């Protein structure tokens, strides 16, 4: 099916597009963000400042961006994919030169008005680029080595730049997100088997390199892995996050302590309580019911995305939608695993809930792409 056929089939135009917006998805996103506002209000001790209020403003801005992106036809975005990817790579390079150092890593570009985190942007532009690539590629060629090497390069370029910042969490997400698109596009199973084997080899190499002059990770990254494996080894230092986070979750019980009653977060036992560890506050104050509800909302968002992807008729739309859904899934899955002690502490925020500007704007823009694919799919015969 080519774009020419879109003109033959009925594609919504003008104001009628509003009717075809995936409103259920909009509702779900708003609900998740609403939970975020509540939690930010709670961790600030019942105040809108310093987190809830700016977060709401950003959400409003993000929603506007989402609708603007949604109403632009999807084929425009397909044509923009390579450009967007190029710009995001350039920004990552620019971070090296002009970036501001925050929390021990160079991740930000200060644009004056707000600070941009190009690594966030690159997660989405990579998905766009790969979707456009497989849209262009003849289906019979997907598993040919030369056509597998090209997307690999497309993935590894931003990954290497992000790793240099250093931001291990985002680098892993980029690899996983890119790999998922290649998988969905139908690249042969064998390649993935090789990559998994290679990954196991790399992990052993990383550990073997420890303490030698050419060690592959920074000391703090090794320490995080150590603490993940045995949090009690360093209860005051890095293991503190995990131990306190588990206590907060556990003490929430079935129904939680009630809104604004969480002692762990309010007494500052939890660092980063408004960003990466915000889920613990939710789980402490609203218990298992609150936690599972948020998980259910997230899962529903994924389900709606998948169902939307199954209805689109061109490869770019479906791969883009699935890729964004997969990235979104990785975000919350990794974050939740981390706070529940299933994964080492890597800096991955809880999507739409954690306090943070770049991440929220970029995510909502990405859902704008999903909406665009949804709106502009050909309907009827």
């Amino acid at each position, binding site marked *: *099916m*080519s774009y020419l056929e879109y003109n033959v089939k009925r594609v919504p135009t003008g104001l009628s597009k509003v009717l075809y917006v995936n409103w259920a998805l909009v509702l779900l996103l708003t609900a998740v963000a609403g939970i975020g506002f509540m939690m930010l209000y709670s961790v600030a*001790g019942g105040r809108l400042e310093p987190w809830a209020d700016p977060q709401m403003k950003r959400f409003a801005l993000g929603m506007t961006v989402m609708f603007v992106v949604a109403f632009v036809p999807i084929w425009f975005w397909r044509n923009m994919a390579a450009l967007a990817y190029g710009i995001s790579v350039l920004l990552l390079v620019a971070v090296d030169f002009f970036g501001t150092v925050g929390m021990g890593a160079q991740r930000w570009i200060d644009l004056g008005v707000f600070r941009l985190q190009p690594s966030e942007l690159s997660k989405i532009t990579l998905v766009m680029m790969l979707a456009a690539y497989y849209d*262009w590629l*003849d*289906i*019979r060629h997907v598993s040919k080595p030369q056509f597998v090497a090209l997307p690999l390069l497309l993935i590894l370029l931003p990954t290497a730049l992000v790793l240099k910042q250093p931001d291990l969490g985002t680098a892993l997400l980029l690899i996983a997100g890119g790999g*998922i698109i290649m*998988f*969905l*596009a*139908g690249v042969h199973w064998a390649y993935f088997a090789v990559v998994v084997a290679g990954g196991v080899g790399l992990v052993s190499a990383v550990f073997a390199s420890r303490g030698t002059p050419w060690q592959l990770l920074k000391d703090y990254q090794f320490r995080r892995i150590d603490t993940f494996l045995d949090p009690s080894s360093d*209860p*005051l*230092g890095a293991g503190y996050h995990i131990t306190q986070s*588990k*206590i*907060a*979750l*556990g*003490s*929430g*019980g*079935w129904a939680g302590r009630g809104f604004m009653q969480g*002692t*762990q977060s309010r*007494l*500052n036992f939890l660092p980063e309580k408004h960003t990466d560890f915000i889920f613990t506050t939710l*789980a402490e104050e609203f*218990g*298992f019911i609150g*936690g*599972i509800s948020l*998980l259910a909302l*997230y*899962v529903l968002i*994924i389900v709606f995305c*998948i169902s939307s*992807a*199954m209805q689109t*008729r061109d*490869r770019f739309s*479906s*791969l883009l939608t*699935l890729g964004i859904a*997969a990235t979104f*899934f990785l975000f919350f*899955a990794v974050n*939740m*695993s981390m706070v*529940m002690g*299933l994964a080492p502490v890597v800096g991955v925020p809880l999507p739409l809930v954690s306090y943070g500007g770049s991440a929220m704007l970029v995510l909502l823009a990405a859902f704008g792409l999903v909406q665009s694919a949804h709106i502009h799919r050909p309907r009827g015969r």
Partner: protein
Amino acid sequence: MKRSQREAEESSRRIGRRTLVLGGAQALFAGVLALRMRQLQVTQADEFRLLAEENRINIRLIPPARGILYDRQGHVIAENEQNYRIVIVREDAGDPEQALARLTRLVRLDDETVERALKEIRRHSPFVPVTIADRMRWEEVAGVAVNAPVLPGITPEVGQSRHYPMGPDFAHVVGYVGPVSDYDLSKLEDPDPLLQIPRFQIGKTGVEAKEEELLRGKAGTRRIEVNAAGRVIRELDRIDGQPGSDLQLTIDAGLQNFMQARLGEESAAAVVLDIEHGDVLGIASSPSFDPNKFVQGISVADYRALTGTPFRPLSNKAVQGAYPPGSTFKVVTALAALEAGVITPEDTVWCPGYLKLGERRFHCWSRGGHGHVNLTESLQQSCDVYYYDVGQRVGIDNIAAMARKLGLGVHHDLPMSAVAEGLAPDRAWKRARYGQEWQVGDTLNASIGQGYVLATPLQLAVMSARIASGRAVTPRLVRSIDGVEQPSGAGAPLDIHPVNLARIRKGMDAVVNSRRGTAHRSRVVAEGMAMAGKTGTSQVRNITAAERAAGVFRNEDLPWERRDHALFVAFAPVEAPKVAVAVVVEHGGGGSAVAAPIARDITLRALYGRVPPGEAYPSDQRWEAERRLNDLPLRDPGSFASGGRSRA
């Protein structure tokens, strides 16, 4: 690019299949997350709730006791004092302003303290304890404790704070401690969690800062159970920390006290080195200040008073002050010339009062000139023209190399703040620094220790010690750490011919002990105590030809900051040198009139180990010397009532 319908369908089928696999994997993972949530929140909930709610476990750091500093006789220089303070927790206090108002009725607090406390309370989270006032008297603290029921959130606490019993005597050597600042934290890659404790004190200057790692020790931890009200129920376990190491310095507190008192209110510095081990027996810089004021938090007015004077009390002039060494540098020029073989001790130079170089005249300090001068006479009378001539012949590179051999222009690694390197200039240096070639005029100036040459009092003392011993004596400030003796600074024999060194020593002997010597008035007459030395008067201004014609201004007629620096380097006793001394008095005038008498008093104090007796002085100076020494505000280091080691 047109594709067939079939191909498109195949493609979307394949995506469909893979999506199913991926969706399944995602569902599985979501299931795992849900199960884990259930495990933590339902199955283990009781256990965690117990931890979090009923018996919240707190891990508290036990700050280690900071290492004590002793002098070489074991007198305490820096110790830890019990310090009662009053702490407020906003969360428990309700309205902090009201609570503080009630507190002021019990204990006297000035408005500034209350203001500062309120500001700090607002800055921190509600549950962070904020210190309202420290260094309280026991009665005040007891009053607060008794009235606890009407003072919610306010509790007395006991901690430790640093105290320097000898006050200003060691301000420059030991420095002082102060609360950790954001700037301190930003400099550290992996800060010790101890530093996060509010008002934790670390070394800011001097030995306290340089040996911070040794002195701080390691934090212990204490796991305690507290109930919901914050009351400590019991201690679960504790891991004791490690107290900081105790340091014994090489300094003799009695001598140090004498030196500070003898320098008085002059802007001056003095250093005494033990020649055998390189031990710094005394290192004084005046005026000084009371480091205890900094520990308690110095008031703005006091701080302004310290920074607003040209006497620079905060600067440790003994190691930070780099001065033109003036005529004291002549020993370097002479030694370089002897070693290079360009002169013999008997060679004479004719001094008519100046040396003509092209159109320029380089003057000797003696307008009439010294006539024929040989090596010993040149040192004895400090003839400038002799050194212009000899310096020109030996060349600047040889002079600079000799200066470095004797410890000038090189870094001496003492644990003190901002130890200056001084400067022994040579051709390469001038090319690198100014991009200009070295001029003969530069050599003439350098030969008499003017021009580019710079040295610190410490370096001058090292130079004297090396000439006296013939060994590369290296200064040492820390004698032992936790009782473990530190390496001696005795040093290896210098690569200088002993005969030449003896010739220089003979010249320095003549400076003090022969009738025509520039420091003859400052000689020592006691048996076996004779001092040798070299005077120096270094100009800090240019003397114009017009001024010279009209008669050079006398120092007393000049404003203070344009007067000459007075210097003296010495070693004693002449026959078997034990101590090396350097004295610099900023803008003090002449070396022989101002610096040499101070150096004699200090040298004698070091040799006798007590205030020197009048018999050591020439009979016509005895009465005056005894009166001068009796008037010094001395304190016996043993008299300081000291708590010694107090570890809570």
